[in-house]
């Protein structure tokens, strides 16, 4: 039963990604060309609401379902891993025109070539796991 709710959340998310065109290679290209406000508006408006909502959750100590704490852990402090990892991610995001969420959405939309991108992303994750101890974090 619980899995059905996660499945529903995923369907909801997938439809948003596809219908907002955030899963389109063209929109990602256009964003990095500063050709439209669209993508900035999506991320920006999600963020404004996200920041306000999380402040409210913290102020009123709102709990998750069942009374447990919300999953809002601070991230470990560092610069190297976030900056270098972020740059590598950004290079791939702009080239493939898809980040991890939209990749799955595009697979469902029937673009079989995206399966190559997903397989390569899994491979990239695997290689990171192999070499992570040699990288600056």
């Amino acid at each position, binding site marked *: 039963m619980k*899995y059905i709710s996660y*499945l529903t*959340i995923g*369907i*909801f998310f997938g439809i*948003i990604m596809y*219908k*907002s065109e955030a*899963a*389109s290679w*063209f929109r990602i*290209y256009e*964003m*990095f*060309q500063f050709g*439209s406000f669209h*993508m900035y*508006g*999506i991320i*920006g*408006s*999600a963020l404004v609401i*996200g920041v306000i909502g*999380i402040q409210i959750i913290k102020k009123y100590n709102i709990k*998750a379902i069942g009374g447990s704490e*919300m999953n809002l852990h*601070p*991230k*470990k*402090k*560092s610069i190297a*891993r*976030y900056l*270098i*990892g972020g*740059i*590598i*991610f*950004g*290079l791939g*995001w*702009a*080239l*493939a*025109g898809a*980040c*991890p*969420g939209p*990749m*799955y959405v595009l*697979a*469902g939309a029937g673009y079989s*070539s995206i399966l190559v*991108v997903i397989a390569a*992303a899994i491979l990239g*994750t*695997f*290689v990171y*796991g192999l070499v*992570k101890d040699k990288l600056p974090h």
Partner: protein
Amino acid sequence: MNLIYDPWPWYVAGPLIALTMFILLYVGKQFGMSSNLRTMCSIGGAGKYSDFFKFDWKAERWNLMVVIGAVIGGFIASQFMSDNIVKINPEVAEQLSTDYGIKSAGEAYLPPELFASEHLTDPFVLSILILGGFMVGFGARYAGGCTSGHAISGLSNLQLPSLIAVIGFFIGGLVMIHLLFPLIFS
């Protein structure tokens, strides 16, 4: 405008993405899509090669359900809710066409020049898909998150590490589009 069939504007999509994050927080989870790639590695037996993949992946099954949902959502949206055409800024479309020969802007959802399955046998196209995907997977795990984990969840929680990561995302994206695309595509 036709709410179901037309593309959703940013002021509809952005708040709905925030809602997705809040629903996941409310059920005691967090919004992050790239961690599924690590889970898939573990399921595939990657724990034999690195301790990074030795974790209780069964605890992450909920997130795989979100992934399966996203696949279904993509199917529903593309089949029943969209004409599968993305109209971008005409100047950007023109530039893509004249500089890089990608002439499909305004006619498709993804450029068939890169994503049509018959081009998978073209080593150039195949390399782009593999290289792009590889960097997304490697970079997301190195940075500890992707667009959902850092740009939405982390920044919403005012995390400085997420700001650094998102600055990195944009440095990488801008370098790719403005410095590397001219070398790759022309």
